[in-house]
Structure formats: structure tokens, C-alpha cells
């Protein structure tokens, strides 16, 4: 059993590229669900939109990666409008139903044969998607790896910029939620009619929250496409959204640092149990499991852990239990 290896692997994943993508999606959810109370169950669609913007602009149309960022923002905004206009005037559950359906519809559409020439069908788009970004890598060309964390030169550059994005969006969210704008969306989360009765156009605020959260998630998609140099339609399954929610609730919804704390813990535990079980099976400590079971077992353990969290700390790691206990009437 190589404990050092388990620890470095686990830490590398806990703050690595995948964690960054999920944290960005969770920051978006924090704006939408945490602060504004919007049940968006289709966050993965905004991530996919970001990834596909990169894929299509860079690969299909052979245009600049920087242009694809603009396109990602526009597409995320358009999708939010498309989902929000019919549903945001209705009860909260309508948005939940429509977004989960729309995210699957989006995935099935982008992988369909009909758009194969532009979107790549089921194989998606693969190639030098992030080259323009990787060309900006300031790390020395003979860079091997950090002492402990095992990223390649290319991945490390993505990780650095990814965390800068997380920092930037966290500051943005922090500024917004302590402003009068944030006060209005928190009011909407509690009681929409009360806020309407005070002369606020609630529909517009909800739309703004949906768009902003969607754009932040789209940046997760951009990171994904650039890091992996590939866009695969079937990676954008609904479970992505649910993991992003898990991360948010783990860290504490409506807490500025909730998504970051939740994301790191989530991936630390998930990667940690995976690495540990893998090694334990190899070392013969556990003989009733196969190495191929590990992927599923760690999700089962994660589920059990979440149940425990909800029972013992329903407010998440950062949340304030007293606040949660306040009568919502």
C-alpha cells in the first residue's frame, strides 16, 4: 500500500481539471439555486454549450479560440432566455422539469446524425481545440512536473487559469450577493410575491440569475474542451448536474465559497476512495471486490456519505444551521 501515492493522486484530482469544471458549474448553480432559488436541473447543458462553442468555432469553422469564448457566452445567454421565458413566470417546479428535459434534448440533438458535419455526431469533435490556449503556456519548456502534484506542463497551465477563473467568478458572485441586486434575488428565493409587491420586476431578476449562472457553467465547458482537446456529447449526461448540486450542497448553498469547498471535498473523497480501494484490492486486502467494481463502489460510498451529511449537517459544511431552522413562512 503506497499511502504517499494515494495522497498525491487524490490531491491532484481534488484540485485538478475535472474538479475545476465541476466547481465552475456549481458556482453557476449557486447563483441560480443557492441565491435566487431557481431549480435548474439542466446545468450540464450550459457546460456542453461552452464545450461545443469551442469545438465548433475552432474545429469546424477554423476560427479563433478567443472568439469561441464570446460565442459560448452568447449561446449560454440564448439558452437561458429560451428556457426562462416560458417557465420563469410559472411555479418553480416547471423550470426544474423543463431544464432537465432540455439538457437531454440538447445532448441528443448535438450527437445526432443530422448535425454530424458541424457537431461531429456521436464521436463529437476531437482535435487541437485548445492549441491557441496551450501556445500561451508560460511554463518552461523543459518543465517536468511539480514535486507532489502530478500534472503535465499542459495540464498545469489549464489548472492555473482554471483556478483564476474560479477566483474571478467567486469575486463577482461575492460582489453581487452583497449588493442590492443580491438582496432582491435572495428575497425572490424566499417569497416572490413579497418582492413583486415591493415593485421589483421579479421575472427580470430571475432571468439575470439564470443567464449569469449559465455563463459561468459555460466557462466550465470551455475549460473542458481546451484541457481535453475533445468534446464528447455523452459526457454531458444529467448526472453531471446532480454532482454539481452535490458539490453545492456539500459546501453549503448560498455561501460564496460553498462551491469551492464542496468541489474539493467531493473530488478528494471520490478520488481518495477510488485510489484506496484500487490499491487495497491489488494488495489483496479486499478479496470480495474486483478492480472493475471500484468505480461504482466509490459512488455508493459517496451516496452514503451524502445521506450522513444531510442528516447531521443539512446546512452543508459552511451553512448556518440556525438560519436553516428559521421558519420559512
Amino acid at each position, binding site marked *: 500500500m503506497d499511502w504517499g501515492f494515494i495522497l498525491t493522486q487524490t490531491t491532484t484530482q481534488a484540485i485538478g481539471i475535472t474538479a475545476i469544471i465541476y466547481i465552475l458549474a456549481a458556482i453557476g448553480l449557486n447563483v441560480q439555486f443557492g441565491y435566487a432559488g431557481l431549480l435548474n436541473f439542466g446545468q450540464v447543458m450550459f457546460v456542453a454549450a461552452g464545450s461545443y462553442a469551442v469545438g465548433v468555432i475552432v474545429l469546424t469553422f477554423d476560427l479563433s479560440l478567443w472568439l469561441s469564448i464570446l460565442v459560448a457566452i452568447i449561446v449560454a445567454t440564448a439558452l437561458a432566455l429560451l428556457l426562462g421565458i416560458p417557465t420563469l413566470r410559472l411555479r418553480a417546479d416547471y423550470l426544474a422539469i423543463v431544464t432537465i428535459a432540455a439538457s437531454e434534448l440538447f445532448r441528443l440533438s448535438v450527437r445526432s446524425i443530422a448535425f454530424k458535419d458541424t457537431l461531429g455526431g456521436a464521436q463529437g469533435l476531437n482535435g487541437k481545440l485548445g492549441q491557441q490556449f496551450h501556445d500561451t503556456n508560460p511554463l518552461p519548456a523543459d518543465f517536468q512536473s511539480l514535486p507532489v502534484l502530478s500534472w503535465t506542463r499542459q495540464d498545469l497551465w489549464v489548472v492555473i487559469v482554471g483556478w483564476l477563473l474560479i477566483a474571478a467568478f467567486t469575486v*463577482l458572485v461575492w*460582489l*453581487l450577493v452583497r*449588493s*442590492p*441586486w*443580491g*438582496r*432582491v434575488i*435572495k*428575497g425572490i428565493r*424566499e*417569497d416572490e*410575491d*413579497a*418582492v*413583486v*409587491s*415591493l*415593485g*421589483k*420586476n*421579479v421575472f427580470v431578476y430571475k432571468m*439575470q440569475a439564470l443567464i*449569469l449562472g449559465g455563463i459561468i457553467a459555460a466557462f466550465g465547458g470551455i475549460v473542458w474542451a481546451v484541457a481535453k482537446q475533445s468534446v464528447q456529447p455523452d459526457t454531458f449526461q444529467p448526472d453531471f448536474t446532480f454532482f454539481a448540486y452535490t458539490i453545492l450542497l456539500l459546501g453549503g448553498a448560498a455561501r460564496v465559497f460553498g462551491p469551492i469547498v464542496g468541489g474539493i471535498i467531493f473530488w478528494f473523497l471520490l478520488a481518495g476512495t477510488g485510489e484506496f480501494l484500487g490499491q487495497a484490492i491489488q494488495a489483496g486486502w479486499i478479496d470480495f471486490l474486483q478492480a472493475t467494481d471500484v468505480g461504482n463502489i466509490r459512488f455508493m460510498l459517496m451516496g452514503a456519505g451524502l445521506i450522513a451529511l444531510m442528516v447531521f449537517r443539512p446546512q452543508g459544511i459552511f451553512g448556518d444551521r440556525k*438560519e436553516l431552522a*428559521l*421558519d*420559512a*413562512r
Partner: protein
Amino acid sequence: MPDNFDSRAEQAKAVLASVDPRPGVPKPDPILVADHVRRSFGGLTAVNVEHVEIQRGAITALIGPNGAGKTTFFNLITGFDDANEGKWTFNGRQVAGTAPYRLARIGMVRTFQLTKALSRMTVIDNMRLGAKNQTGERIFAAIFPFLWKSQEKQIDQRAIGLLERFNLHQKVADFAGSLSGGQRKLLEMARALMSDPELVMLDEPMAGVNPALKQSLLGHIKAIREEGTTVLFVEHDMDMVHDISDWVIVMAQGQVIAEGPPDTVMKNQAVIDAYLGAHHDSNLTESGEALTEDGAR
């Protein structure tokens, strides 16, 4: 206010004294005029108001047995529910079909029968939400505190002033959810006043408020009138109606069945019948006008 009156109260009473006490009677200076307002839920016609006018600057009580349609009428007028038919004007402006947030912006602000204090927000944040035209409520300006900080200071001053009046100033930093039911009613009313409305519509402001608080609430409502704000409120407590209202409108089964000064209305046979027909233990009896045959409540 004309010089020949000591207070708005006297002025309102004097003006309304010359108005004929009958349903749908025109008023000298109405702020709100409603015509043919109807709302049905399935087969039930909850509201069917032919014509009603609310006098500016006065305190008007809207009374009637449970289920008379008072809350539904409030919801229709303030845009929270859609009428099947009907027109109404606010300050002479047609406002039927106008979005509720717009009505609030032009000065028609309401409270709710089931209090809507925002529990997980502090008392002061509840109050701040009530202020109109906030620069910092725009998403791009929100990011730059220097654009809205000074406005926020003014809003805070106003909020503290109102909270002092409503005896909530010790609760400024508390979560609204930690207040008592009566204090929440006070907070909701104070919050509504943050926008300097022309017409405040209070749906059962006294429900659940303890007797001591009731007295001060009465005082607050009178004070609102003295500042020139028109008050329309729904209430069951006849003593209170009698005490503070300049005019009373009675609804039963969706219709306006009587109108007039409090004394006149409470002697009105149609009103007594409506109450007794609906619920025998009505505290209308407290005014001594309507005892059941055996003399019991």
C-alpha cells in the same frame, strides 16, 4: 391640507359626511375607481363588484364575512390575480391588466393576509427591499459599490426612522423569521411604507397581533393618513374598524352590499344579516348592534 381643518382625519370625515351612504356611491376625490370587476373560480363567483370608489386621503375599511371576496378583490386590484372582466383606474389612469410590480411602483402597495416577511433576511434588509429606484439593484451597477453606497445610506436612514416608529428598531439586525407574528405584521407594513406609496392596501393587519400592539398599530395607521397616504384595509375587528376608519365598505358574496361612515354601516340591516347569515359569533355584536334572538353571542 386646507387651513380650516386641524387634521386629515377631520378633513376626511367632513368630506365624506356629505356622501350618500349607499353601495357604489361616487366620492368627491377618488384615488381608486373600480367598475364591473368579476372573478370566478369554477362555478363560484368570488368577486362581482359593480362599482366602487375609494376616497383619497381617507382610511377606508373593507369588511365582510369570511369568504366575502375581500382578499380576492385586493389581489385583482393589485394585479396579483387576473379578473375575468372589469376595469379600474388608479389616479385616473387605467390600470386593469397592469403587472403587479408596476402598480407598486406607481404608488399602490399592498400587504398580505398571510404575512410575507422574508424570514431568512434581516429586518433591515427587509426594509431596504422596500425602497424604490435603487441603482444597486441593477446587475451591472451592483458590482460597483461606489455607485450605490450613498443611496444605501439614505435608504438605511429612512428605514431606521420607520423601524423606530414601528418599535422594531431593536430588531434591526435580527432575522425577520425570529420576530413574533405581530411584529412581522408591523415589519410588513413598515416595509410597504419604504416606497412612499400613495395608497396602501392592508389585508387584515391586525390578525394575530396582541392587544397591546394593536393600539400602537392603530396609531401607525392614523399617522399614515396624516402624512397624506390613502389607506384601504381589510379587518374583522369591528372595534378597530369603528375606531380608525373614515368610511366602511361592506362586501358579502363578492358584492358590495353597503357603504357609509362606520356608525351608519353598523346599523345597516343588510350588513347585520350578512354577518349573521355567515357566522353567528361575529364580533359585530361587540358594537351592540346585532344580537341573536336569545341575546347570546
